[in-house]
Structures are given as structure tokens and as C-alpha cells.
């Protein structure tokens, strides 16, 4: 058992008293996220400013055998930064500097507390020809946390998971060493997270902070065209959606493809809204891409199975918004501001089965649903969200939403999907199904990197 006053005093010595807290209100706040996982309080909250601060804190945690949980904005909704065993929450918000933009090699290096909104704003102001893959999370979501959970964003159709766009890492290992990953380990350039070296980024991405604390991250940037538009197609048969998505990705003209389904507002009921985003530097380029998209779906259009919706500007604006604000709106459908989703990553052929399950489960547990599906990497897979909103002041509704989510997660696994940003219960489901040798490898890596088991315990704990 750690001596709490020793830990507190040591943390004050590292970051100063203004950036350490063991007060009840802070512990209450950091005990929970916006989702359905039960809260658990930390003992301390600390806000480091530098990599050296993080190093010192990690060394302290090792010495005192105190759990340590790095946190960005805490928006994963699946309780990934709820300190399951107490200890120190390492809030990275103060590490908020954008350190470098290499315009010609098209990457940015950020500290761990830099938010999506700050990066978007910075690039728009200073590098309007460059952009990054913005996830549909609130703008306060951090770039690093999004990569750590293998987030997706507005460029995922073309370039894969946002974590695939990482171009280098600086990590404080659980034992306190600072380690650079990728080209930045041998060069001053952050252009690659692995190739042509052994790709060690996989030791940290997707591990939810259980193998180290990422303090800096290189992220690939992409050309930002002058104009952008969205084309909205409607289908009323779930069976057609995989083919529509494949055809869209085949054009190689669509930077983002999203499918929405919800029973409300009424205009959504009974149809799937397929949004195809295109960009161009000129009207001609945009028009050419529009034509390619139309051509791709023409057969379905002629058969009257897929329709094109002319979208007026007031309706188009929210569709164009990055990030989308629809999630926020959906979160309050049940009046009470609660929402969570299970977002399995799965082959796109599973869309019809997943949608049927969503409707079935929503009816079974009497919860309001919506689903947003994002195409990832030229049709290699999709993220299908089983989303449910609930009133936080209604425990019964929350319990029903949790049951609905659990059932959807189990179903997704049975159908060959892989759970995304799995909560601790879902991680167990995944590990139960995982190849034993893979599981053993995870255990070995974890033991090797984090011998004292201090990093975000409870997550990815191989039995």
C-alpha cells in the first residue's frame, strides 16, 4: 500500500501544487466518463507539462507501486480511463504544444494534450493546404488518445484508421525510459512510425495506455482541397448497402463514406442515408468526381433502389461540419444527456445482419437507437455503431441500454467482428475468443514492458 502523503508530496514536487489534486470534486470527476461503465475514483489527479514531468511521475508510480492512468479528454465512453484500481490519473491537457509541421513531408508533431480542434484550427490558419483526419468526436478529443484507441476520421476511407496515419511516437515506458518510435528514432524527421525499421508502434497503439505514456506523436497530414461537398444517396434495403459502399470506394474519388440509420427524425425512418464526401480544387474537379460517383451508383438508381437526395444548404451544413455535431444531438434525444455505442470493426458485408440486430435489440430493450457506419480503408472494413441514448437520471433506462450494448457486442463477436475501444468486460470477451498464442504474446509484452503492472490496470489484463 502506497503512502499517500509521500505520493502527493512527490507529485507536488514534480509539477507544482497547482497541478496536483486529491480533492473529492476532482476525484469524483475523473472517476467517470460519459458512458455506462461504473465509476471508480483515482487517488490523485496530476497534470504534467513536460516529458520529464511524465518520466518522474512514472518512476514515482513504479517506486510506490501506484497505478497510473493517462487520459486525454476522457471521451472514449467505454470507461478506458476510469481508474479501475485508483492511483494517479495523468491528465495530459497541459502538454498542448504543436511542435512542428513539416509542410513538404506532410506531417505534424504534437504533444499528447493537443486537441483535434486545436490542430484543425492551427492547420487552417497556418497551413491551409494541409489537413488531418478529423474524427467525429467533440473537438476537445485529443489527437493522441484518438490514435491510441484506433479512432477513425474523415479521411479513413482513403487512408485507414487514424492510427494508421501515425508517423512517429515519443513514449515514456512504464519503467520511466523515454523511447522514440519510428523514423524519429534515427533521424530528426517524423515521417514514418515504422518502415523501414521494425514497427514498434504496435506496442503502444491500441493498448489503451497499458504499455506506456505517449508524450509526443507524429501524424500524417494530407492535401486540403479548396472545395468540399457531400452527395447523399438513399437506400431502403440494408442488403444493398455493402454494394453501394464498395462501389463508392471503387471510384477512389470519395474521401469519406458514412451510412446513417435512425428511426427519428421521421425523414430518416425506413431509409439508409449514404453520405459520400468529395473534394476538389476547382468546380471542374468536383464535377468530375460527382460524375464518377453517379456513374458508380447508376445501376441502382435506374433500378429505383437507390435515390439521390438534393440537399438544401441548411441541411448540408451539419453534414459538412467537422466534427459532426449529430452525436451531441443524439446524446440528448432521451433528454438527460447519455449515450454510448458499441462500434465493432467488421467486414462491410455484415451491414445487413448488424442493422437487423440493432433494430431487434432496440425493440427488445425499448431503447432509442441510431447507427453510423464509416467505411475504413477502401472497403477493407467498416465501423458499425450500435448507438443507444439514455437519460442519466433514469437508472432503469441506463440498465436497459447497457444490456442492449452487451448483446450487440456479443453478437458482433459471433459474426466475426472485432470490438472497437472495448470496455473491460468486452476486452474479456475478446481475449476469450483470441488465439491462445496471441494472448500469450500479449501477456509477455505486457510483463516485459510493465513489470509492476502499474499502467492502466484492469485493461488488457490477460488472465
Amino acid at each position, binding site marked *: 500500500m502506497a503512502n499517500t502523503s509521500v505520493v502527493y508530496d512527490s507529485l507536488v514536487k514534480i509539477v507544482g501544487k497547482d497541478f496536483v489534486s486529491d480533492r473529492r470534486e476532482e476525484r469524483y470527476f475523473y472517476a467517470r466518463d460519459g458512458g455506462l461503465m461504473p465509476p471508480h475514483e483515482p487517488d490523485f489527479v496530476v497534470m504534467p507539462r513536460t516529458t520529464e514531468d511524465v518520466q518522474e511521475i512514472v518512476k514515482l508510480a513504479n517506486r510506490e507501486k501506484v497505478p497510473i492512468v493517462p487520459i486525454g479528454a476522457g471521451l472514449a465512453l467505454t470507461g478506458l480511463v476510469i481508474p479501475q484500481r485508483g492511483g494517479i490519473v495523468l491528465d495530459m491537457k497541459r502538454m498542448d504544444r504543436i511542435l512542428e509541421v513539416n509542410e513538404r513531408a506532410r506531417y505534424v508533431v504534437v504533444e499528447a494534450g493537443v486537441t483535434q480542434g486545436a490542430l484543425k484550427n492551427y492547420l487552417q490558419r497556418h497551413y491551409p493546404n494541409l*489537413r488531418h483526419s478529423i474524427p467525429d468526436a467533440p473537438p476537445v478529443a485529443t489527437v493522441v488518445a484518438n490514435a491510441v484507441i484506433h479512432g477513425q476520421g474523415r479521411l479513413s476511407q482513403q487512408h485507414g484508421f487514424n492510427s494508421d496515419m501515425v508517423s512517429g511516437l515519443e513514449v515514456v515506458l512504464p519503467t520511466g525510459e523515454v523511447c522514440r518510435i519510428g523514423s524519429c528514432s534515427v533521424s530528426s524527421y517524423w515521417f514514418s512510425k515504422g518502415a523501414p525499421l521494425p514497427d514498434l508502434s504496435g506496442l503502444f497503439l491500441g493498448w489503451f495506455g497499458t504499455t506506456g505514456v505517449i508524450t509526443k506523436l507524429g501524424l500524417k497530414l494530407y492535401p*486540403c*482541397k*479548396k*472545395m*468540399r*461537398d457531400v452527395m447523399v444517396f*438513399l*437506400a*431502403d434495403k440494408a442488403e444493398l448497402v455493402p454494394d453501394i459502399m464498395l462501389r463508392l470506394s471503387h471510384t477512389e474519388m470519395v474521401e469519406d463514406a458514412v451510412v446513417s440509420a435512425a428511426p427519428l*427524425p*421521421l*425523414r*430518416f*425512418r*425506413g*431509409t*439508409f442515408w449514404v453520405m459520400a464526401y468529395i*473534394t476538389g480544387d476547382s*468546380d471542374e474537379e*468536383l464535377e468530375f468526381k*460527382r*460524375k464518377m460517383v*453517379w456513374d458508380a451508383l*447508376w445501376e441502382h*438508381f435506374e433500378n*429505383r*433502389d*437507390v*435515390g*439521390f*437526395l*438534393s440537399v*438544401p*444548404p*441548411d441541411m*448540408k*451544413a451539419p453534414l*459538412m*461540419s*467537422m466534427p459532426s455535431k449529430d452525436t451531441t444531438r443524439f446524446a440528448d434525444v432521451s433528454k438527460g444527456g447519455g449515450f454510448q455505442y458499441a462500434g465493432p470493426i467488421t467486414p462491410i458485408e455484415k451491414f445487413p445482419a448488424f442493422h437487423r440486430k440493432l433494430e431487434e435489440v432496440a425493440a427488445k430493450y425499448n431503447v432509442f437507437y441510431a447507427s453510423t457506419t464509416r467505411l475504413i480503408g477502401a472497403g477493407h472494413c467498416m465501423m458499425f455503431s450500435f448507438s443507444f441514448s439514455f437519460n442519466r437520471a433514469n437508472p432503469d433506462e441506463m440498465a436497459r441500454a447497457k444490456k442492449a450494448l452487451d448483446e450487440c457486442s456479443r453478437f458482433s463477436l459471433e459474426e466475426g467482428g472485432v470490438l472497437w475501444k472495448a470496455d473491460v468486460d468486452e476486452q474479456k470477451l475478446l481475449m476469450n475468443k483470441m488465439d491462445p498464442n496471441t494472448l500469450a504474446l500479449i501477456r509477455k509484452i505486457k510483463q516485459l514492458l510493465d513489470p509492476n503492472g502499474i499502467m492502466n490496470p484492469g485493461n488488457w489484463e490477460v488472465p
Partner: protein
Amino acid sequence: MPSAELKFDKTKCTKCKTVSCLTKCQYLDFKSKEQARKEWQKVINGEDSFILQSCTTCYACEEYCPLGNHPFYLIVERQEQKGILPAPRPIITMWINQCQPVGKFMVGKVEQRALSYCFLPHFATLVKGKLFDGIAWAVIFGQEFFCNAVYLHYARASIIKERLPRIIENIKNQGIKELICLHDECYGTFTSLAPAYVMEVPFKPIHYYEYLYNRLKELQSLISPLNIKAAYQRNCSARLCPETDHYVDDIFQLIGVERIKRKHDHEDALCCAEIIRMAKGPSLADDIQKRNIDDMAAFGAEYCVFNCPACWDSLALKVAKRGIKPIHMIDLCKLAISEPQSLRLVEATAEV
């Protein structure tokens, strides 16, 4: 409740000398008047005709018919009877669901006279200033007051017949005696569509052009002539109430606007084509829009005056790119009395 029957007199068509409904059609080609007559007879008889498949639902034949016999409404009836889909099925589903009267609406301080926003949010932006003094708050808006004429585009006369009586009842229940319709689609519904289906309209529909004209006359001392040349963009539902077209000239004269004499105005007007895009695809729609805007430019239009907000949504940006200023009729009247334009262009493709 028995479904309302369309008041259609086939003997009128037998005696018709012109078959204008089809020979004037801008989208269907007939080799001769006789071929048109033959095809039309098939439609009357409930037989298959290419008309039912190829109709763009531009509404124009309602205006072309010299006998007021509702050829377009008959086409819609026949399309529905034969299960023909003028637009892809999901689009029709979306429209049917979106406008269901499910108790969602907005009612302002309505007395015997009211303004109908129908289901178009643009009017909340447009209805401002002296033109609407004393009536700006007397508004009805939402699905419960939605005229439902849009289902003519989607071969769903049955929806109109089912929902329109309830809509009329809802308006009546507000105690409204005079309804100023801010959209041709509403006005045309109450003056053409409802009577065609023998539905009683227990209030007086007033076209907003008539209202604007009378109001401008009251405000005549404030008018500074605009001295501009404008193209007028006629919308599809203007075909349901062509008798109101003279108000365009009357208003323009009052505020010093020259309605350019271009090819695609009056009977030969081209619609905004967005419904056609959803029904037939982009080639025809792009062609119509290009011909329309080329025509505006060729005849020296400085402004394009819109009547319908949906036309605004589809064409405003495109005419602006050709150097023609888009403006809604209400805003044009505001300019004439030195009030600012309210409905402005949204650069829908700009944000990156």
C-alpha cells in the same frame, strides 16, 4: 373514409383541338398532334404509355391544358395505379415519412388572417420588416399545415387524398378565414388540387404576391425604384396557379424592375430541376439548369428573382457564379423600400 375522386372529364380531351398538355411539353417528343392524342388516350384509358414513365413531373401540363382538365393529376393517378416510380423508391419513402402529420407544428399569434410557411424554414428568415407589419407573428408552420402537393412528384395522389383533408381541417380549426400562402405549392393546393379532388376549402387562400402588391401600394411613399433588369425564375408549382403570374409584372412595375423578355419565362419557363435530378439523374437536370442560366445571362439579367425557396436552394449559388445576383421576391420588395435582403447565399461546398 372513401378516397376522393379526381374531377377529370375525358370528353373534354376528346373534343380538345390542341392536345397542348403534350404538344407543349418541354421534355416529351411527339411526332405529331395525332400521336400525342393517341398516347393521351392510352393514359385516359388506363393503358400503358411511355408518358407515364418519361414524365419529369414538371407540372407544366396543368398550365398548358386550355380546358382546366387536370392532365397532370391524371398522370399522377395513373402512375400510382400502375406502380410506376417517378423517383427511386427510397426518395419517395423519405418524403412520405418526413412530412407525416404527427402533431409537430408551430402556430404564432394567429387570428382570422394568417401566413402559411408551409414546411419551408426559409420564411422565418424572409418574413421581416415593414412588409409584414401586423402579420409577421400570425404564422402557421409544420407538418400539420403542410400542403402535401409535393407527392404529385412521386406518384402518390393517395397520400394527398389521405392527408390534405386533415390539413385543411387543421387550418380551419385555427379560426383562419384568410390564409396568405408564401409558397405557390400551398396556394395551388388550395385553389387547384383540392377543388380537383372535390375537397372544400373553408378559408380564402391569398397568394403572397397579391399580399405584397397591396402592401407595397400602402408603402408606396417609401419605394425607391430599383432600376434593375431581372430574370424571373418560375417554379414548378406556379403551373398550378398561372393566374397569379401577372402579379410579378405588377410588383416589378411598382418597384422599378424590368422583367427581361427571355426565352424561358412564362409558359416556356424551366424549373429549378432538382426534382428532376432526383427523378432522372444529373444529365437532364444539369442541362436544364445550364440552359436556364444561359438564357438569363444572354438576355442581360442583373438579378434572378426567386419565388420558391426550393428553387433558391438549387439555383442561387449557380446563378451567382454567373454574375447574376440571386434574390427572393420578398427580399426584392424589401430592397425597394430600403430594407436589407434577408435570405443570403450559403457557400455550401466551401467548408473544408
